[in-house]
């Protein structure tokens, strides 16, 4: 499924400047697309607009399946797996209790929830912690939970906002390895991170944002050439 972000703008209530400024962008189906930029560049806002959490002030986001644009909101939502930067779940509940709630909201049957839950818990090594409340989990484990809840319904597009921030190397590897597996299965992955080394090695295509504008979108070589830099980190350092 391709995503076309068409000339969108957005401003937060009471803010003086636009958080997103007439931004256009195309994300190809089955790619790993990194969105990067310094703090306040508009990464999280762009992701929330693509996920339909907030609405743009102007412009549209179009989802194309083959050559047809997808107008059914339910189908679009069913295709997206959103993994926010915050721990967006109920820490007072267990992982399974969270999975049952969010899975049901994704129209999954109890059997589908259980199957997908068992599989993901096994992948992320949380089998022994199933009966514990999430509040007792470490930061790394909570990041995994955030990811599991975004992947329960086997989405075609996975949108990750800082999925590896503040976690240990092992957890980071577990998450990135699994995302690579999903990519090989044909999933589209949209990824933002401040950790530019990981982003550079993980993503295929990149969009550099500054002040809510798309500075450049392309593969690593094209972006580096455009910015006349040796790596992504040095681009950010100059921003």
């Amino acid at each position, binding site marked *: 499924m391709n995503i076309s972000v068409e000339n969108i703008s957005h401003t937060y209530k009471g803010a003086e400047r636009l958080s997103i400024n007439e931004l256009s962008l195309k994300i190809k189906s089955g790619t790993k697309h990194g969105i990067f930029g310094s703090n306040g560049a508009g990464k999280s806002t762009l992701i*929330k607009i693509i*996920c*339909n*959490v*907030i*609405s743009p002030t102007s412009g549209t986001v179009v989802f194309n399946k083959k050559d047809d644009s997808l107008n059914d*909101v*339910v189908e679009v*939502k*069913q295709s*997206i797996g*959103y993994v*926010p*930067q*915050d*721990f*967006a*779940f*109920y820490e*007072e*509940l267990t992982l399974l*209790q969270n999975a*049952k*709630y*969010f899975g*049901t*909201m*994704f*129209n999954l049957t109890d059997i589908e929830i259980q199957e997908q839950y068992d599989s993901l818990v096994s992948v992320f090594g949380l089998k022994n912690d199933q009966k514990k*409340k999430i509040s007792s989990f470490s930061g790394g484990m909570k990041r995994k939970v955030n990811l599991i*809840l*975004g992947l329960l319904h086997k989405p075609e597009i996975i949108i990750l906002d800082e999925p590896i921030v503040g976690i240990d190397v092992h957890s980071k590897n577990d998450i990135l390895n699994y995302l690579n597996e999903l990519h090989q299965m044909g999933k589209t992955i949209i990824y933002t991170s401040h950790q530019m080394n990981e982003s550079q090695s993980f993503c295929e295509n990149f969009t550099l944002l500054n002040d809510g504008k798309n500075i450049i979108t392309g593969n690593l070589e094209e972006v580096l050439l455009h910015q006349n830099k040796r790596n992504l980190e040095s681009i950010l350092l100059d921003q």
Partner: protein
Amino acid sequence: MRKLKAGIAKEFLLLLNDKVGLGMMVFLPILLVVIITTIQNSALNLVNNNQIELILSNQDKQALSKDYVASLKQSQLFNIVEEDFSIDELNNAINGSDTPFGLHISENFSATIIEENQIKTNSILESMGLEESSGKKNVIDNKITLTLIYSPIIQSNYAQSIEKMVFTLSKKLSTNLFLSELSELLEIDPSSLNIDQQLEQSNLLMQKASVDKVESSFPNASQHNVPAWSIFAVFFMVVSLAGNFVKEKVNGSFDRVLTMPSSVWYLIGSKAILFWIVSLFQVILIFTISRFLFQFIGLPTLYFPDNLLIFGWIILLTGATAVSYSLLIGVYSKTVEQATGFGAISVVIFAAIGGIWVPSFVMPPLLKLLSNISPLHWCIELFYSVFLKGGTFANLISPSLVLIGMNVVFFLLVYLKLRKLNILSK
């Protein structure tokens, strides 16, 4: 429906896991009702049932003052401790003890009554022409013969009631003496007149009756306090419900739900339904304890109205109003602190102006007017109409309509805010 059930199950688990919130919604209200009822019950008992503690100092020691002391004892209103105190000593004794009243009978008590009666008798005989004018004065000097001392913590209207009782008994003594003397002068045997009996006897009877038609013969502390503080407890759900709603907005789980093929109304609806059920549970639990267990802890039993259908309607409407108010606070608050702080304080203010603590009819006109904006005021109106006045459905129509109107306004404001945030179109 499956999503609604999943939402309710999630809310239920969250509530079960929130021990403090659960305690605030279930155990604190029971404790609150028990404490407030106990306090008011003991205050009512002090006024209505208990003998009033009284330190009595009789400096007169004549027959009349002894009769007077005997009549005070016979009244069974007082538990009298006799001491030989001056007024100052009696003052100190009241100040330094829990005894609320002291009565000082001065040395001239008997002499004053006798003198007063002689003047009255002479005056009557002179006016009837039975005795020549003696030229003596027929004006009674005001003399202080009784001094009632009361503790400063006693409310003045209560002290005035006691003062009237004490004074009435002394007047009765004086009247008895006067009639006896008059009958002797008229050469009638006073004992044949049965003066005491004649004075007591009256065909003017007074009946004590409350406007209530419920099982209890007279409103008691439970009948007043249990409904009032149950309403307060139900509305205090604002801390849990609004806080819980804002927490979801802040931690991103609300955003996650917005990305799902599901309406935000499932999220709101599941919260509303669960907390509505909790409010019913709260009221039923508190009322059941008040009905069946209060008697074992020395509190008056709460009597239920005859019409349980009306009672059910009132509980449902009260719960619904508390839920819609809590959702309103939750939707408009930006932080958990805002929701819980503003929510709790607003409920306390609504309780104060709504007549939960003191009836709104004793409030100044401005507060009485303001009480109309308090949802708790209309809830208490409903409860009192059935618990204290034995009201029917007809009596409930106007407060019910006001509460239904408030619910509509609260939900409309919730809807408008969600629409403004573009959440409803997600």
